[in-house]
């Protein structure tokens, strides 16, 4: 048995390639229609920021869907977190720690994360240990959170645009810092590559030719540098995008390189086999939904900071965007498969459609119709390719 075969790898990852091609096609079409404006550094910059909040939710949703569940409460949970954080920003920190905007912002982040974690754990317990289907639990959760949002806001808009806090969702990194980060990432990619090769040698595997590995790493390096170059031409890397990137890397690492992640995929692939393999199904389910709650907390904090206020409509419909992103990104609705990376690209496609259609002054009604069509079309293409395989 040899260790790898490229053709096979390609076929396994066909879904990833399809959505990347889809993304390029969409960008190409918009670039032509808008006479290049679509690819301006300002627009690309906005695009990535727009996808941020949905992407936090989509990253968690992948694992939820992988274990065969669904979470309909994520949008409202992020919204609830955003209004809670707004209340703390406007009413509470100013009384306890006036004139300390940075500390206040830090505490707001913690409050936001804890709020998401708490509600996530509450739902997770009901789903995992009381065995209520996740669809129903989180549908109920959505109602509860809606009430919670009304209760917290009293129906009014709460300003969350204090300096310090606003930086989380709105600030740009200085261009120099941007380049330093980019250089760091590229260096890290190469270090990891060489370390991986060394370990492979240690375990006695035959190595792929080094140019293959270098090409692969170089490809990602170019993407990173290109992104930094483009956004630096506008105002620099946005803080929320940086937070998103770090989150995606961490969650993606968890999903593929830890027992927790591996058990999630096994559980979704075959619950009974997983159980007989000694996996604690309840605990695993519980933890996946807890992680989802935590990511909703993060999404909610970024949301509050980005829009600058908490409102009763905060986060409405985000759960559908998150689910659509996962599905676009190849997550199976039956459980067992899906990648975080795919879901983020899915979220990018949804955001790309949004901004593109807005730039073309397409009516909102038609925008919804087109987004729906692209979602279904992408899945049709995918089903077709899987069959012909």
């Amino acid at each position, binding site marked *: 048995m040899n*260790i*790898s075969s490229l053709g*096979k790898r390609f076929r396994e990852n066909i879904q990833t390639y399809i959505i990347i091609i889809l993304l390029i096609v969409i960008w190409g079409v918009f670039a032509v229609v808008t006479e290049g404006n679509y690819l301006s550094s300002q627009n690309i910059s906005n695009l990535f920021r727009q996808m941020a909040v949905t992407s936090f939710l989509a990253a968690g949703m992948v694992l939820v869907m992988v274990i065969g569940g669904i979470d309909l409460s994520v949008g409202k949970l992020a919204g609830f977190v955003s209004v809670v954080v707004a209340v703390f920003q406007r009413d509470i920190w100013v009384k306890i720690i006036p004139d300390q905007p940075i500390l206040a912002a830090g505490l707001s982040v913690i409050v936001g994360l804890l709020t998401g974690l708490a509600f996530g754990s509450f739902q997770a317990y009901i789903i995992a240990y009381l065995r209520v289907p996740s669809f129903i639990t989180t549908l109920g959760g959505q109602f509860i959170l809606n009430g919670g949002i009304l209760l917290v806001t009293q129906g009014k808009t709460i300003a969350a645009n204090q300096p310090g806090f606003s930086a989380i969702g709105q600030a740009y990194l200085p261009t120099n810092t941007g380049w330093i980060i980019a250089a760091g990432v590229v260096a890290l990619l190469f270090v990891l590559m060489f370390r991986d090769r060394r370990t492979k040698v240690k*375990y006695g595997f035959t190595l792929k030719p080094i140019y293959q590995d270098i090409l692969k790493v170089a490809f990602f390096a170019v993407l990173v540098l290109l992104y930094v170059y483009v956004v630096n031409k506008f105002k620099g890397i946005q803080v929320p995008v940086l937070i998103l990137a770090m989150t995606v890397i961490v969650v993606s690492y968890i999903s593929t390189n830890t027992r927790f992640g591996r*058990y999630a995929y*096994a559980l979704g692939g*075959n619950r009974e086999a997983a159980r007989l393999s*000694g*996996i604690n199904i309840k605990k695993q389910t519980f933890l996946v939904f807890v992680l989802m709650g935590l990511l909703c907390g993060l999404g909610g904090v970024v949301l509050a900071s980005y829009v600058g206020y908490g409102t009763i409509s905060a986060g409405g419909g985000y759960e559908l965007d998150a689910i659509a992103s996962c599905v676009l990104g190849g997550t199976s609705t039956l459980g*067992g498969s899906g990648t975080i990376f795919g879901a983020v690209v899915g979220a990018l496609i949804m955001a790309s459609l949004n901004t593109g259609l807005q730039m073309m002054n397409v009516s909102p009604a038609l925008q919804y119709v087109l987004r729906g069509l692209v979602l279904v079309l992408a899945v049709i293409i995918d089903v077709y390719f899987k069959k012909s395989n």
Partner: protein
Amino acid sequence: MDENIILDFQHVTKSFPGVVALDDVSFQVRRGEIHGLCGENGAGKSTLMKILSGVYPYGDYEGKVIYDGRELVLKASSIKQASEEGIAIVYQELTLVPGMTVGENIFLGREPTEMGSITWDRIYSETQKILDEYKLDIQPQDIVRNLGVGKMQMTEIAKALSENARVLILDEPTSALSEAEVTRLMEILGTLKQHGVTCIYITHKLEELFRITDRVTVLRDGKVVTTQDTKDLNSEKLIQHMVGREMKERFPQGNRKPGEVIFEVDDLWAKDPDKGREVLKGVTFNLREGEILGIAGLMGSGRTELVMTIFGEYGKVTRGTVKLNGRELDISSSHQAMEAGISLVPEDRKRHGLVLIQSILKNISLPNLDRFASFLRVDQHAELVESLKIAKELAVKAPNMFVPVESLSGGNQQKVVISKWLMSGPKVLIMDDPTRGIDVGAKYEIYKLMNELTEHGISIIMISSDLQEVLGMSDRVMVMCQGRSRGTLEITEATQERIMMLATGMACEQ
């Protein structure tokens, strides 16, 4: 054409890749009789029934089936056709919709309507008529879920009768029934006979054959051994017909020298966790180091329930002890069982053994990730090295470790399942029907592997439905019947006849 013959099988042959399931089968079923059909597991009974129900449509098999004077031609993808012809099958696994009423189930798929709206009154009045006619103690409005297994079966029968079934096939109808329910079923079959309905009664419970059938056909290895009047048979003769064949060179020579007793199960009782029914009613046996202990028993004898209970994943133990190396075990999950040194290769590899969409690598390492993982990280290199090593030892044939297991053959899938459970280094390996559904060559490899494992001091408990396999591979054989251990035979004193005697309960009632 004899007017008395309703079904006439003429030289029916059905083969699958590697197996001939039915080999030139010819026999006749008379109008209005209760015709018993028996044979070991895998003798071809189910295949025959699948031909009658159209699962294997006309043209999918060789030979002819003459039904009521003309050839039976069932088209592919027409499930309803058999029942329209008047042939109805009551399956082992019940096929009712649990949440619906008896009436709804009986008329499912052919609800009477008036201008597009269902006429519920008619459904329930006609259901009542059928139930009354055959004196079935069920109400049309009962929800099926709330009925006992026995009544569910009666509902199935009522459903068949409502479709004007002339031939009713019952596939192991009593496997889940209590004694009283069996008696009730026998009465109903008697009534059906008076109404002129022909019955084919599939079972391997000999006592029932003698109690109810007029004639019996015995199948063995896909061939008809005999068709005889039941009154001319006795249980010894019948068992001989069912098993009587010579042993071929199917089993590799092992070089086993079993050592001291290391594993003991003493008077184990356990309850079904969902239904609360006792499934194990006193099981006692022991296992020596480096030994293969065969567990024989018919379907429903509690074999699988026994090993799943030992593995901590099934019954709730109500009495008895399980000891490994003299130390009493208290196992309530597969995780604990593995830590104690007990592994189990499950019966249904696709449902319980494998995550089909995942790679060989991930399947093998799944129960063993603790060996490679810290809290933060799974060492994927070590994982690959170890998994590759064991997959090589077991000669899993695949292009590489990353192909999904669903693309492998049955034999190779089984090797992956065994690899997965061997990596943890068990002292006791339980194998539940380890060669089910795999071809002869792969079976041989699995047998060789079992011999090697025992030479390395691993003790194996092997459940098997194939008596030859039990006799060919075991050092001793423990026979189960109705949740009890009926005794352990040394291989030198074990014969197919003796095992069947114990397993069918012919010997144990005395």
